[in-house]
C-alpha cells in the first residue's frame, strides 16, 4: 500500500490515486503560492463564479479547509468545527455543542474508529473543519478522514531517519490548519505543510539538526499568516526555541531562544557556558489573545533535568510562561514557575486564558503541583496553591511564588519528592468550562525517588544527570480528574482514577466533562458534580486529549486510544 515518493515521504495510494476533479475547480484561490504542480486549467469566469459563491456564503461547507486567519479568531462562531489543538485560542478545550448533554450522555455509542495500526502512544487531538477530520499518528503519520464515516481521504507518513531519538515515544499531538494547508512538526525537527485536500507536501523546512536531540511533537499554532512551533529535547541538553514560519512559503520569520544568549536579558541566570545546553524546550501548543496580540507559550525543564550543579542561577526561561508578540517573537514578559529546577517540572501545560470580570488571567495547573493564577496583561502572579500533593516546596517568596526547599534536590542515594518526575499533571490538556466556571485538570498522585547520575554532556546523547524511581514502599499511585474553582484555587470535586492517567480533559456546553483513564475507559462526568454518566472501554490506556465536533447536525466526541481514533455519538 505504501510507496516512497520523490520528496522522501511515504504515502499511501489513497492520496496518489485521488481524483483531482473537485480540487481543480477550487484550487487556484486556495493555494496561490503553489509552484510544484502542473497549472490548473480553469477559466477566469469559472474562477470568478467560485469566488462569488464563497462570498455569498453557503459555499462555506463545500470550501473544505479554507481556513482564513479570522476564522481561527472567531472559532466560537463555528462550534461544529475544531479548528486548533485546544479548540480555541484561549486554550479552553471547551465545546459549545450541547446536543450530547447530561440527560442523554448515558446513551452514547461508538460511531466509527480509525486505526493507525501503529504502536506506542497515540496522542493526537484531531481537527475538524467542515466535515473533514485531520489527525496525526505515531511515527509522524497524518491523515484526513471523512468525519461522518471515518473513511480516509488521504494518509501521509514521514520517512523518518533511523537515528531519531525522541525522549518519550514516537508521538505527535496534532496539526494546525491555515488556508488550504495543515502543518505538522516532525520527530526529525522539520515543519511540513501538507495540502489539506491531498496530503501532498507543499513545503518542508528543517528547523534544526535533529541529531543534537531536537524533535517536534506538539501541534503547531497558526496565528495570522504564521505557523508557530516549539521544540522538544529537554533530555538532550538542547537549547530550546520557539519558531514562526510563513504559512505560505515556510520561510522562518523569527526564532525566540528560550535560553538567552550572551548580551540578552536573562543570560546571567546561567552559570558559565551552561546556557548552550540549557534545555527549556517549548513542547506544548501555546495560546493567543487577539485583544492584545499576545501569544502565550510555556517551556520545559533546564538541562540536565535533575541535576542543578553546573548551571547555578534561575535558568531563565526554563519552566516559564512567555508572552510573545506573534509578528516578531519579541518577549513582552515572562513568569517562571520553577526556578533552577532539578525535578523535571516542565511548565509545558497549556496556558488557559480566562476572563473574570475585568481581570485577564492565565490559569495553569503546573506539573510541579501548584495551580497558578497569573495576570496575563503583565505576568504578575495572583496566587498559587497546590492542587496535588507537594513536598518540594513549603514556602513562598514575597510575591507568593512557591520556592523550593533546599533539601528537596536529588541526591546520589535518592530523595523522595512529590510530585514525582512525571509531575502532578503533564502535557495532557486541562479544560475551562465557562458555564460552570470551573477548571478541570488531570492530577497524578505519584511521588518518586530522585537520584543524581552525574554525566558529561555529549551532543545528541541523553543528558538527564539523573534517575528516578517509583517509591516501592508507598501505597499505589493514583490519579484524579479535579474540578478547581479558579476564584479560590479550591477543589470543588474529584473523580478518582485507579492509577495515574495521561488523558486530557474536554468540557462541553452539554454540562459534561470527558476524560480517559489508564485502564482504558473513556468517561463522561457531569461537569457540576463529577458524577459519572457514561463510560466506554477503549481497550488501551488513553494518552490524548478529547475533542468534539458536529456534522449533519449531529455531535460527536472523539478520543485517541491504543492505535484507534474513536468517535462517539447518540444512537
Amino acid at each position: 500500500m505504501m510507496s516512497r515518493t520523490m520528496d522522501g515521504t511515504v504515502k499511501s495510494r489513497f492520496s496518489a490515486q485521488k481524483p483531482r476533479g473537485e480540487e481543480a475547480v477550487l484550487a487556484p484561490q486556495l493555494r496561490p503560492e503553489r509552484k510544484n504542480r502542473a497549472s490548473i486549467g480553469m477559466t477566469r469566469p469559472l474562477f470568478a463564479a467560485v469566488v462569488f459563491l464563497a462570498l455569498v456564503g453557503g459555499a462555506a461547507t463545500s470550501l473544505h479547509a479554507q481556513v482564513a486567519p479570522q476564522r481561527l479568531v472567531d472559532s466560537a462562531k463555528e462550534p461544529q468545527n475544531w479548528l486548533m489543538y485546544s479548540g480555541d485560542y484561549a486554550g479552553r478545550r471547551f465545546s459549545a455543542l450541547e446536543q450530547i448533554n447530561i440527560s442523554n450522555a448515558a446513551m452514547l455509542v461508538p460511531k466509527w474508529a480509525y486505526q493507525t495500526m501503529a504502536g506506542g502512544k497515540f496522542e493526537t487531538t484531531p481537527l475538524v473543519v467542515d466535515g473533514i477530520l485531520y489527525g496525526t499518528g505515531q511515527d509522524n503519520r497524518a491523515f484526513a478522514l471523512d468525519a461522518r464515516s471515518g473513511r480516509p481521504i488521504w494518509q501521509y507518513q514521514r520517512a523518518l531517519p533511523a537515528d531519531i531519538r525522541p525522549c518519550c515515544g514516537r508521538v505527535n499531538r496534532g496539526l494546525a490548519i491555515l488556508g488550504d494547508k495543515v502543518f505538522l512538526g516532525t520527530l526529525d525537527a522539520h515543519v511540513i505543510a501538507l495540502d489539506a485536500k491531498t496530503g501532498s507536501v507543499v513545503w518542508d523546512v528543517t528547523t534544526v539538526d535533529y541529531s543534537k536531540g531536537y524533535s517536534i511533537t506538539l501541534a503547531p499554532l497558526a496565528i495570522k499568516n504564521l505557523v508557530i512551533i516549539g521544540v522538544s529535547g529537554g533530555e538532550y541538553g538542547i537549547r530550546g526555541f520557539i519558531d514562526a514560519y510563513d504559512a505560505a512559503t515556510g520561510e522562518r520569520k523569527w526564532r525566540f531562544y528560550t535560553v538567552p544568549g550572551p548580551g540578552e536579558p536573562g543570560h546571567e541566570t546561567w552559570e558559565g557556558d551552561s546556557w548552550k545546553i540549557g534545555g527549556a524546550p517549548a513542547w506544548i501548543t501555546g495560546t493567543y489573545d487577539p485583544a492584545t496580540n499576545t501569544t502565550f507559550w510555556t517551556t520545559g525543564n533546564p538541562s540536565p533535568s535533575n541535576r542543578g550543579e553546573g548551571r547555578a542561577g534561575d535558568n531563565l526561561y526554563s519552566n516559564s510562561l512567555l508572552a510573545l508578540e506573534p509578528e516578531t517573537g519579541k518577549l513582552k514578559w515572562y513568569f517562571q514557575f520553577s526556578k533552577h529546577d532539578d525535578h523535571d517540572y516542565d511548565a509545558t501545560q497549556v496556558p488557559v486564558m480566562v476572563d473574570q470580570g475585568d481581570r485577564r488571567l492565565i490559569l495553569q495547573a503546573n506539573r510541579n503541583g501548584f495551580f497558578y493564577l497569573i495576570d496575563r496583561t503583565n505576568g504578575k502572579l495572583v496566587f498559587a496553591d497546590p492542587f496535588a500533593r507537594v513536598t518540594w516546596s513549603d514556602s513562598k517568596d514575597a510575591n507568593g511564588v512557591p520556592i523550593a526547599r533546599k533539601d528537596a534536590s536529588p541526591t546520589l542515594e535518592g530523595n523522595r519528592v512529590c510530585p514525582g518526575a512525571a509531575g502532578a499533571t503533564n502535557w495532557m490538556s486541562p479544560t475551562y468550562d465557562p458555564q460552570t466556571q470551573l477548571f478541570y485538570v488531570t492530577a497524578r498522585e505519584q511521588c518518586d525517588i530522585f537520584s543524581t547520575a552525574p554525566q558529561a554532556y555529549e551532543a545528541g546523547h541523553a543528558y538527564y544527570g539523573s534517575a528516578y524511581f517509583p517509591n516501592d514502599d508507598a501505597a499505589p499511585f493514583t490519579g484524579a480528574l479535579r474540578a478547581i474553582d479558579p476564584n479560590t484555587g479550591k477543589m470543588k470535586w474529584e473523580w478518582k482514577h485507579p492509577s495515574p492517567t495521561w488523558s486530557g480533559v474536554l468540557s462541553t456546553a452539554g454540562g459534561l466533562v470527558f476524560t480517559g483513564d489508564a485502564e482504558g475507559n473513556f468517561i463522561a462526568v457531569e461537569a457540576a458534580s463529577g458524577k459519572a454518566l457514561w463510560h466506554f472501554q477503549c481497550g488501551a490506556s488513553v494518552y490524548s486529549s478529547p475533542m468534539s465536533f458536529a456534522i449533519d447536525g449531529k455531535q460527536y466526541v472523539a478520543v485517541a486510544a491504543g492505535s484507534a481514533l474513536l468517535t462517539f455519538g447518540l444512537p
Partner: protein
Amino acid sequence: MALRAQDKNPFAGDAKAAKLGESQFRANCAFCHGLGARGGGRGPDLSRAQKRHGNSDAELFRTINEGVPGTAMPPNGATQQGVGMTEEEIWQVISYIRSVQAKAPAQMVGNAAHGKELFYGSAACSTCHMIQGKGGRLGPDLSTTGSARSTDYLVESVRSPSRRLAQGISEAMKEFSQEYETVTVVTAEGTKFMGVVMNEDHFTLQMMDTREQLHLFDKSKLRSLEKSRESLMPAYDQKTLSDKDLQDVLAYLLAVGAQ
C-alpha cells in the same frame, strides 16, 4: 533501532566506560533493576553471574536492545519513558553490569532438594503458588521468580509479604501493573467472596477467590467491596520457616528459575 550485537564488548574492562555506563544504567535501567543493579520489585538482580536470558556480551546486548518478549523487559528506546541508548551506550551499560557482577557462584548455600520438599510439603507454598505447572493459582507463578528477583526481594516476600505486594498483570500501555491486592466483596444477593484482584478499573473487578474461582463484577452492583494491602499470604516468621529452611526454599526457586 538498527543496532547489531558484535560478539565482544569493545569497552570490556574499561573502568571509564563502566562509569559512563552507570549513568546510563541509572537513567534507563535502574527504574526496574534498582540503583546498584541489584534488582527491584520489577526486574532481576543483574549482579548475579547467572542470567536467565544469557550472560555473554552478545546476549546481554541483544537483551538490552531487543527486550525479552513475554516479560516486562522492553526493547531499547521503547519504554515510552526516557530515551533510547546508542550502541556505544549499551556497551557502556554492559561494562557497568560486569563491574558490579558478583563473582560468587550462582549456587545458593541452601539445599534445593529440601527446599522443594518444603515448597510442596510442610511450608505449604504450593497451596497458592505454582512451579512448572504444579501447585495453586491464588498467588504468583514462581517458576521464573528465582531468576527474576533479587534474593533480598525474595526473602522480604516470604518474611513480610505485605510490604511490597507482588505484581500481577501488566497491560501494554498502562504504566503500573496490577498488584496482588486482597479483596472482599459481598454481592447484591449477599454472597461473600474473598480473594485477590486479578485486575480492575473504575467500574469493574476481576478477582479470584480463595477457592480459585474467577469472579467478574460490575462494581456498582455489589453490596460492598473492600480492598486491602494486607496480603493473603501469611508472613513466614522464624518459627514457621527457619532461616535455614528459607535458604533451602530460595535455593529451590533459584534452581528452578535457572532452568
